[in-house]
């Protein structure tokens, strides 16, 4: 049976979180299908990089180690990926829905003339009956993603133009080590025989990657504000509570658009997807655009003046009141009761 391939992003000798998430999900699909999981890692100075990849249960790792491959540029990575996929002919290929994956995957899909589903949040395996052909296709990839601003979940399939490809949203799937002692076969890719001089016409002149200290994805507690918070000053209340509880502050798109909070703290369909232990939503009405990114929180507290706010239907606690009153009280009673 044909393999599942994962394109791994790597920078400064570190395999990106999203790629570890993809490998974990890829392994589950591979177990279901009874096929091999294979990874592509292209970068520079990749000595021992397999140690970060193998534990996810990867059977074969293609490593292209060359100075010209890092930082990522579209054309050389596209040439390598296209070459390998044509040669190895996998059934499924997964990419991260990141700045890199969303730049690379469509270029590959066009070159291979195959389908690509963007921004999936659920991947599964299943069958599909094609009426026109009176034929049941088995073991297809179900690439499930939110669409129309998050108001629907669409299951996208592709039965006739392989491979089946998808990009997967960051932070949605769990990282799970399969076996710390898993042994992978390593295949060194001969970069110079595949990548052409013309692949280097685009040059990187300058690059600033912020090692952002905002880590919403990992935060156990998030205090998020919406347009209803009213001002940047009121957001300081949220920050105080978040800091006290050991959490992070987030915001809805409306709060970001209003300039109350930085863009890198946006939660929702177009921001970060989070699943904290506790999510406190202050002045957030709960448009689907927002709830799509936080509805998996274990516990949700909604603070809102509007008893009809849609977010209340998701909440475990609904506090009907003014956040300028409620949050200082939460701070006060936490300080009084915490051990």
């Amino acid at each position, binding site marked *: 049976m044909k393999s599942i391939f994962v394109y791994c992003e790597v920078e400064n000798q570190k395999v990106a979180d999203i790629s570890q998430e993809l490998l974990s999900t890829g392994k589950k699909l591979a177990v279901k299908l009874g096929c091999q999981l294979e990874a592509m890692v292209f970068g520079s100075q990749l000595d021992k990089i397999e140690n970060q990849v193998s534990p996810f249960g990867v059977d074969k790792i293609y490593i292209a180690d060359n100075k010209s491959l890092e930082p990522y540029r579209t054309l050389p990575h596209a040439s390598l990926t296209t070459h390998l996929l044509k040669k190895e002919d996998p059934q499924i290929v997964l990419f991260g829905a990141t700045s890199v994956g969303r730049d690379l995957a*469509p270029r590959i899909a066009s070159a291979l003339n195959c*389908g690509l589903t963007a921004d999936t949040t659920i991947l599964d395996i299943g069958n599909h009956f094609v009426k026109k052909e009176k034929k049941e296709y088995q073991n297809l990839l179900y690439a499930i993603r939110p669409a129309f601003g998050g108001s629907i979940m669409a299951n996208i399939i592709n039965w006739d133009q392989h491979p089946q490809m998808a990009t997967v949203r960051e932070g949605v799937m769990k990282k799970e080590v399969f076996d710390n002692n898993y042994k992978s076969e390593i295949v060194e890719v001969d970069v110079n025989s595949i990548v052409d001089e013309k692949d280097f016409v685009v040059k*990187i*002149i300058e690059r600033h990657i912020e090692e952002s200290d905002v880590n919403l994805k990992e935060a156990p507690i998030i205090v998020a504000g919406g347009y209803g918070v009213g001002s940047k000053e009121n957001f300081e209340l949220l920050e105080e509570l978040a800091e006290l509880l050991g959490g992070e502050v987030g915001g809805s798109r409306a709060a970001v658009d209003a300039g109350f909070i930085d863009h890198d703290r946006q939660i929702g369909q177009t921001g970060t997807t989070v699943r904290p232990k506790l999510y406190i939503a202050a002045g957030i009405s709960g448009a689907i655009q927002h709830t799509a990114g936080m509805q998996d929180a274990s516990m949700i507290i909604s603070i809102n003046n509007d008893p009809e706010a849609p977010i209340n*239907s998701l909440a475990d606690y609904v506090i009907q009141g003014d956040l300028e009153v409620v949050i200082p009280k939460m701070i006060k009673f936490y300080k009084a009761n915490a051990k």
Partner: protein
Amino acid sequence: MRPLKIVVLIKQVPDTRHVGPDAMKPDGTVNRGKLDTVFNPDDLHALELALNLKDRIPETEVTVMTMGPRRAADIIRDSLYRGADNGIMISDKRFGGADTLATSYTLVKAIEKLPSYDIIMGGRQAIDGDTAQVGPQCAEKLGIPQITYVEEVLSITNDGVIAKRRLSKGVETVSSPIPCLMTVHGASPACRSKEAKRVMKYKYARTNSEIRRNDEFIIALHSKRPYLTIPEWGVEDIGADESKIGLSGSPTKVKSVESVVLTASEAKVLSESDTDIEGMIKELIEHHTIG
């Protein structure tokens, strides 16, 4: 710098940013009739970037191109009002149901019909699908480099273009030869407004299929001012292979859609009183939710 030929790929989309409760039918499918259509926001940013280059390089020509149903000519007129020089409509029932692969094939067949081009632009992504795929797919098919997520063009000369890219965790400045394709990020400047003079000039711009056969006023006007006729290309005009367009050219198919229902759980409803809030905090501490 010699004048450029810029093609801006634009799309009319349902306004998914304002999805109301009636936007979904009871069976979970989208009630498109309840959604307004808008000029895809990122595409307006792309148009602005193209017009900005036109400001910088005299004689540059900006052509907007869209694939869509007849009513999508609205965004071509909108572009003409804002400063585009020409618009091209790609419309044919057989193009319907296209996924990104079939869309990029169709757009590229149309682009290849143009006498020449230097830069292809488009928004980073469209709000109806958020896929961000059509740009890179067109670049691959045209065999040209792509610069995705462009926020600003820092310089443009005969040697090429230098652009700043907005990445999820930072920025990157790259150079690329021309021709190339750029997808434009929403962090770039917003599009300039319509100009009253241009609205006057182009308000009767129509595609042929928009013109009713008995509308003598429009017909006479168009024969006097040919620039008002927006070219409209179908399958045969662009020489497209029917197996590669529309639904049949689309490998991805929708198996099913489910509307997202907010799960109703029994919430504890509290007031802002001391008793209620202290009670809740104590429960959270007791259950080790906070601690």
